[in-house]
């Protein structure tokens, strides 16, 4: 969910695909949130509130994970559900932020930074996950497989729209988030992350924060 409108639509589709893949294969509920500002709230506090409100992850597996970026404060956090702490211990989360995401952000390349972050989180959960990704300036290839084809995009757009419709009908099922202190991102009323909810897994505050 890009509230700051900073990601290219191509990036958004790609991220959506990765998140969906993981949701469908029941490995994790991975969500991304980009906000213009935290409005004085520490990012750790914001993150835990969000994952609880969005009810990320299933109750049984505690497999939610949130990547949150606050543009004004230049802060990044990966909040990891209890069930994923083995795959994404604090140290790994820290490294993803400082070694993978931050370098792109410093060059004002937010799309690639977030995409790389999501990809590394996905890879931490499932090292065998493969997806063709081309990242701008450094021309990194994460998979030697086929390139992103037009057929794939069409399917993803359709799924995206479908989930969009579903989220309209499934209000209140864990997708709505009214939090914050009356600030711009606390206004609420929008579906959280595409209208799916695992029912809410456990988060003990694990993960890592960083900045750029």
């Amino acid at each position, binding site marked *: 969910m890009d509230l700051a409108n900073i990601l290219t639509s191509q990036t958004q589709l790609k991220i959506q695909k990765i998140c969906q893949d993981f949701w469908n294969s029941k490995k994790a509920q991975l969500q991304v949130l980009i906000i213009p500002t935290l409005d004085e709230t520490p990012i750790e506090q914001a993150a835990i509130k969000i994952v609880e409100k969005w009810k990320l992850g299933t109750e049984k597996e505690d497999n939610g994970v949130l990547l949150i970026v606050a543009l004004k404060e230049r802060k990044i956090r990966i909040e990891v559900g209890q069930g994923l702490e083995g795959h994404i*211990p*604090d140290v790994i*989360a820290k490294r993803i932020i400082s070694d993978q995401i931050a370098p792109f952000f410093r060059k004002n390349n937010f799309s690639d930074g977030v995409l790389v972050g999501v990809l590394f989180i996905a890879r931490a959960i499932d090292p065998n996950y493969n997806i063709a990704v081309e990242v701008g300036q450094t021309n990194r290839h994460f998979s030697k497989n086929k390139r992103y084809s037009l057929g794939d995009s069409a399917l993803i757009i359709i799924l995206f729209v479908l989930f969009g419709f579903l989220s309209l009908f499934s209000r209140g099922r864990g997708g709505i988030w009214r939090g914050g202190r009356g600030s711009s991102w606390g206004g609420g009323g929008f579906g959280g992350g595409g209208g799916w909810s695992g029912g809410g897994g456990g988060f*003990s*505050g694990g993960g890592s924060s960083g900045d750029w």
Partner: protein
Amino acid sequence: MNTRILASTLIALITALFLSSCGFQSIPQSKNSVEAALAEVNNQYKRRLDLIPNLVNVVKGYAGHEKETLEGVIAARAKASSITIDPTKMNAEQIRKFQGAQGELSQALGRLMVLTENYPNLKADSQFRDLQAQLEGTENRITVARNRYIQAIKEFNDFITVPPYSWTNSLLYHHEKMPQWDLSADEKTKAEKAPDVKF
């Protein structure tokens, strides 16, 4: 005879309904939640204790002559380790002592981390960076666990002080209000965590 049986059955049913809707189950459940929350707080503080020996060793490798600060951390850790709490036998005095010891450890750690700012090679050391990430993660976990504990206590206190559950409490359980986790101790450590760095 029949009406009497009917009447007593009815009364029994109503009583059962009354009890179940008036905190008969909720109050013990809430008490259990408080104990579980405290156990989790304890758990996360212990996690922090476990990280410290490695941290001290790595810092020693680069800043071994900073004896005062390092020994301060070691001593504070020893003290914190020695004060344990049993979540099932919660005692306000014991909890206060526990909090105090952990607070002192937080301060000692704070001083250590500020000191490391003067040692760029230490800061660049990958093992140190990893430990720092783990420590930050643990401190956050402590915060989350503590907040949940405070919430659990509040819910319990609400149950036993607000009618109609409070009536069930007076009739059956006779629980006392639990003391709230005193945040002022934590606030104090935050304020003291940022001494001036002398160059």
